[in-house]
């Protein structure tokens, strides 16, 4: 059968499967050039790398400059300039912007979302001749240069090598450029070399580290770091994290006080020191006073519990990707699904994102009423001037608010519906008793029920992990019976999942040596920490969910996140002695490098992360899936 590739059918299969995921753009260079020649970026053509750095700095500054709020528009132009200007000049054919002929741009699906978020691929789409996500992009048989923009991973390199080999076999000769994000890895070169395609490729690197997702949130958007570091012991990304933090220090001056909590954090810190040693001495000015680097494995409990704030529930129910959420048509009861951007720019969202879910609905109701009264002002308008004012100023804003409001209301309703269906109350009750450490028997019974009733396996696993974490492992008898039940219900491949979880310390079996007597007297690690840092409110202590004064409101009054308490503890306690004491209770310990203490308690917190995860996504990464 003749396929668009002109290859025999069997040959095609491997190729086609991977094409499905690649987004593909054919570009005409004139347009890209247009970005370069825009006023700010004039320098880029001549002195790409240096200028890209400058623009990069400016772009980050814009982001945080509170006086003069940045616009995404300006920002995305800047990042595209960084993107295209950052390619090393000199080799004429290398950079996208440098040759006047057309090119194909292939973007790693892992990068499209974040790039879209910060730069707007839509912008690329509108400025370029064609942009399609079609799977057969090989149809363009003109000898365009092809540019791959990919994360530097072994798997991606294999894909690219397969592409090129297939194309060359077909007699389609062209030049290729592979741009690796966030840096060029020698091992990737080796793979390309082993596959025999390195000769046809120009390699470049693009230092794209942290994506700004909100004014106080930066993310590397690399979800696989968790698995590769904690499960596979792959240290590759220590470098990625360290260099992203070093870049941050380049932009904001050195950070005088650094605390690391956990094993990986210490490694990141050491590497940061090594990186900075090579550079010149930093100046004395700084904008960021404290840096806390925290390992995820210090605190597994927090992501595994069910958070109850609006934003968290949105993420758990719909999945927020790079700050963008997609409401399906079903949720909105509208013909089309809608994507909206969740950020601090949205005045309604700012008000509700951190509220306990129970108080979101009333707020939205009140807001709707408020909007209505403003809207009714139109009846009181006397003069034409007033009318004009109203139409030009209020109306547009009102309309906008109204639409977002309606989205949030629909989302709330949907979440409520889902939660009642899934017998959410029993689930939460079980979770809370696990945190309290009471009624363990009932909890186990509930988990068994979950398995018997064929609840989604990740939900069950979540409870199992919580059980193990709070109890310092399951007793051998419970472990065996629950594991057997689980495997019988969800398939044998989950055996590997259990081993993974054991390796991570998420779900372990108590050593059979400790008999019943030991269990009674001994308090689990979690319980000790909980006591020390008051993670779990004392029984009888009511947590006000509407107007919270206790951090625990996030988890419906049952639990305060460990990481947050740790940071609080370190900030409040002056002596290093106490940290060390506390550090003994934490895997990997605490390391502090304090150079300059600030006394101000008025803190502005910026969160940098490798990726944003939920309990669901955490477990999904480490659970074994059957190959399709």
């Amino acid at each position: 059968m003749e396929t668009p590739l002109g290859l025999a059918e069997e040959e095609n299969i491997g190729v086609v499967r991977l094409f499905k995921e690649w987004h593909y753009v054919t570009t005409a260079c004139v347009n890209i050039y247009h970005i370069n020649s825009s006023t700010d970026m004039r320098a880029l053509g001549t002195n790409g790398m240096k200028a890209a750095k400058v623009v990069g700095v400016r772009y980050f500054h814009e982001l945080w400059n509170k006086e003069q709020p940045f616009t995404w528009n300006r920002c995305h132009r800047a990042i595209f300039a960084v993107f295209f200007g950052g390619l090393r000049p000199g080799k004429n054919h290398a950079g996208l912007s440098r040759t006047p002929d057309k090119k194909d741009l292939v973007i790693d699906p892992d990068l499209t979302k974040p790039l879209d978020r910060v730069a707007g691929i839509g912008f690329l789409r509108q400025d370029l001749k064609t942009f399609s996500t079609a799977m057969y992009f090989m149809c363009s048989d003109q000898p365009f240069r092809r540019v791959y923009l990919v994360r530097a991973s072994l798997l991606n390199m294999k894909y690219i090598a397969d592409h090129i080999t297939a194309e060359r076999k077909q007699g389609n000769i062209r030049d290729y450029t592979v741009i690796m994000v966030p840096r060029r890895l020698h091992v990737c070169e080796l793979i390309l070399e082993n596959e025999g395609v390195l000769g046809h490729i120009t390699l470049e690197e693009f230092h794209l580290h942290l994506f700004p997702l909100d004014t106080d949130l930066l993310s590397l958007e690399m979800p696989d770091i968790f698995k590769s570091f904690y499960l596979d012991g792959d240290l590759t990304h220590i470098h990625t994290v360290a260099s992203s933090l070093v870049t941050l220090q380049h932009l904001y001056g050195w950070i005088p006080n650094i605390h690391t909590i956990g094993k990986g954090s210490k490694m990141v810190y050491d590497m940061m020191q090594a990186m900075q040693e090579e550079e010149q001495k930093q100046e004395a000015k700084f904008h960021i006073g404290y840096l806390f680097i925290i390992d995820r494995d210090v605190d597994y409990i927090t992501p595994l519990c069910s958070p109850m704030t609006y934003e968290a529930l949105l993420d758990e129910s719909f999945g927020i990707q790079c700050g963008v959420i997609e409401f399906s048509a079903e949720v909105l009861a509208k013909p089309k699904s809608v994507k909206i951007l969740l950020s601090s720019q949205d005045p309604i969202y700012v008000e509700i994102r951190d509220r306990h879910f129970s108080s979101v609905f009333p707020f939205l109701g009140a807001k709707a009423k408020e909007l209505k009264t403003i809207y009714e002002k139109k009846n009181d308008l006397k003069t034409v001037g007033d009318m004009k004012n109203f139409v030009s100023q209020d109306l547009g804003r009102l309309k906008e608010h109204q639409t977002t409001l309606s989205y949030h209301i629909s989302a709330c309703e949907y979440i409520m519906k889902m939660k009642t269906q899934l017998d959410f109350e029993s689930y939460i009750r079980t979770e809370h008793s696990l945190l309290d450490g009471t009624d363990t028997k009932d909890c186990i019974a509930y988990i068994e029920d979950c398995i018997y009733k064929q609840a989604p396996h990740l939900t069950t696993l979540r409870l199992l992990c919580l059980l193990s974490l709070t109890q310092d492992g399951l007793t051998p008898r419970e472990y065996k019976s629950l594991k057997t039940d689980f495997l019988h219900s969800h398939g044998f491949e989950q055996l590997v999942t259990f081993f993974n979880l054991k390796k991570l310390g998420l779900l372990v079996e108590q050593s059979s040596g400790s008999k019943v007597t030991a269990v009674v007297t001994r308090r689990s690690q979690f319980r000790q920490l909980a006591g020390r840092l008051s993670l779990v409110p004392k029984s009888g202590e009511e947590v006000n969910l509407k107007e919270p004064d206790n951090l625990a409101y996030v988890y419906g009054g049952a639990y305060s996140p460990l990481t947050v308490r740790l940071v609080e503890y370190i900030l409040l306690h002056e002596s290093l002695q106490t940290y060390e004491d506390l550090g003994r209770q934490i895997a990997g310990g605490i390391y502090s490098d304090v150079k300059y203490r600030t006394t101000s308690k008025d803190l502005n917190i910026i969160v940098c992360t490798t990726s944003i995860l939920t309990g669901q996504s955490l477990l999904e990464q480490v659970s074994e899936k059957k190959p399709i």
Partner: protein
Amino acid sequence: MATADWNPLGDHYYRKCEVYAMEWSGVVDLAKHTVAAAAYGGPIALMKDESKLNRVPTNIKPVITVYNAAGKIINQIRWNSGTIVKMGWTIMEDLLFVQDDGVVLVYDMFLTFKRTFSMGQEAKDVKILDARIFTSFQGTGVAIMTSTFRIFLITNSDSPRIIRLAEVPDLNTFPSCWDIVVMDRQVRALVAKGRELFIVDQGGQYQKQDPQMDREDVGEYIDMAVSFNNKFVVLFTSTGHIWMGMSDLTTKVGEFDTKSGSKPQHFAWCGNGAVVAVWERIMLVVGPQKYWIKYPFKYQDIHLIPEVDGLRIISNDTHEFLQRVPTVVEQIFKIGSMEPGAMLYEANKEYQKQHQKADEYLRMIMEKLDLAVNQCIQAAGHEFEPAKQKQLMRAASFGKCFLTDYRPEAFVNMCQMLRVLNQVRHHTVGIPLTYTQLEQLSMPVLIDRLVLRKLFGLAILICQYLRVPDAEGENRIRAHWACYKVQQKHMEEDQLARVISQKLLERPGVSFSDIASVALEHGRKVLAVKLLDFETRASEQVPLLLKMGQQAPALAKAIESGDTDLVYTVLLNLRDNLDAAQFYMLIHTMPIAFSLYLQYCRHQNLQMVEQLWEQEDNPNEIALTKIVRSYTQDSLDPRIKTLEDAGNCFHRTGNTFAEKLTEEQIKLMRYQRRLEDELGRSFADLSLHKTMYELTKEGSHHHVERLRKDFKVPDKRYWWMRVSALAEAGDWAELEKFSKSKKPPIGMEAFVEVCMKYYNKQEALKYLSRVLPEHKVKSLVCVGQFQEAADQAAENKNEDELNYVLGKVKVADKQLAETVRGYLAQLNTRR
């Protein structure tokens, strides 16, 4: 008298001054040598040419000797390759030898062989007759003329790319003369064929040119020369006519009739303003306006080297420089000059004599004193003799005193430049640069040339004197020095390493790995290892260690650096170069390396991962990998086999539980195959629960029963499975029968729940009455009987249940909610 050696040529003056008395005087006879000298005061190569001695051709290979510009010998070798057609220098001061088979050999000035390249197959096949070495826009080019009279050329001897020029029509004898002209990034050849002139270019085009002459019968073109900047060309005809013009041959600059019938021995441009032709004992300098100067010569053999601002003349005894007298010098020293500079110079002279005339002169030029000072400074730059330089600088300094706001930079710079120039002109160094040439060449290049001549000490002193930043000046030179030093075989490695580290440690920007790699190239591995120890950047250190076969240290350093990419580099290199056992031994001891390699294997091939774990003797991991792999296998038998292996591995670890689970899985898979044969549909990859579920839905109850017994399914799970499956299948009769079979361990409420799940309220109600009171509330809510649920809860006196009902009711029914609140209040008061 300053103007003693000046000769007028039209409006200008030309001067010829001796630069050096040659050290080779009395030893070397230029008549017996072919000469090639580099521009910018570069070294001179002599090839003892047997053919010049008019002897019978012998097979004796020529001797090549390189001297500096002052005739001091640098090195000498006996040639041992093919026949040399042409010898010449590149702009990097490498010596090129073009052989008659088109092979070009590159030597440095110490006559160390560097590399070789060829001018193409055609040249090799037909041999070449002549060659030109020229300066192109990219570096140094080589052009050859083959025996078939084709011209091939390269424009950059560092990356030779052969260009074939257009053919000259009907050229079947060797052209009477030819040369290369570089214009606007285009290289063209100028070929004279008797009376015809052709310009041939790279694009395959040729142009016939007919330069306009005053006289008709000028004869054939027998010689030509291209000026240093490629802008001008001069032609010499068989009747002794000289034609000067722009290099496109369309614009004439001048013409001159020498009335000489014989071709000059040497023919070259002096700068851009005059042409020099040399016959046996006469040298003629011809300017554009038919002016001329005649110099008698005492020597028979000389050699001419065109420079940007003049012409160097080498003879057996002297090294002279012929140039147009620079304008400023002319302004100051010309007899009767009234230029401010000249007056200032005179004033200073009088001042030295303490004569009042000094004041007179000064007054005359008071308004133009700054100009006068500048002229003196400039003129000093163009003078060769330090005494004259001093006089001029003194004059400038004297004039400076009378200026209030004169910026001293020009003066200071000139002092510095002169000091450097005088140093490099010294005959031991032998670089007779003029100020103009230095400006063209630039100071960094001059320093590089000193380094090239291994005059490290002088180069460092100059850098220090000129305050060149360490990174590009001193440190770089020291690194070069070290690279040179490691080649000295007579020194002990320990001592060398110590000496080098002493001079280079604490100097940022010095790459020890570069030095080490030079040492390695010269076969000094021990030294290279020692030097590498000083390298701080792992990314530089590791690849070299690998190259030297120092695998274990390379791996250790890579891991220490924390850069996993480096670790990978080492690992993959090791895998290819070590045998498997050694390799596993090595990574066994380094867990970081091990897990990285594991990652790599995982992407390549799962079997490799298994092997790796086998090497580690970790049966647990082997088993897991096998399990993962089993899912990628297509047919059942190999899958079972793989799982059996996995089970054995678990057995080895003593993990009986996992072993049992694996065995169960195999049992299940076998049973699923039986089912497939029997029922004709696939159960592959379903879990036990799902299999039973599917079977129940189909009504194959005896299989379910069998599985239940075989796998010892707990009652509760069995019941839940069966109840859900029956409900989904809509087999309500069977469900009812099942509910009555014995007391359900999951309670009747489960029946209600599943019925409602499939929206069968009627069936649900059947079981409702049989639900025990303590579980009834939930079931009642489930079927939507809130009132009854509230009553039941109140009866149970259970606050939680009441709250639960209240939570469910709230929005729908206000009255009922009130009732429930009433119950709650009652319950509370009763307490």
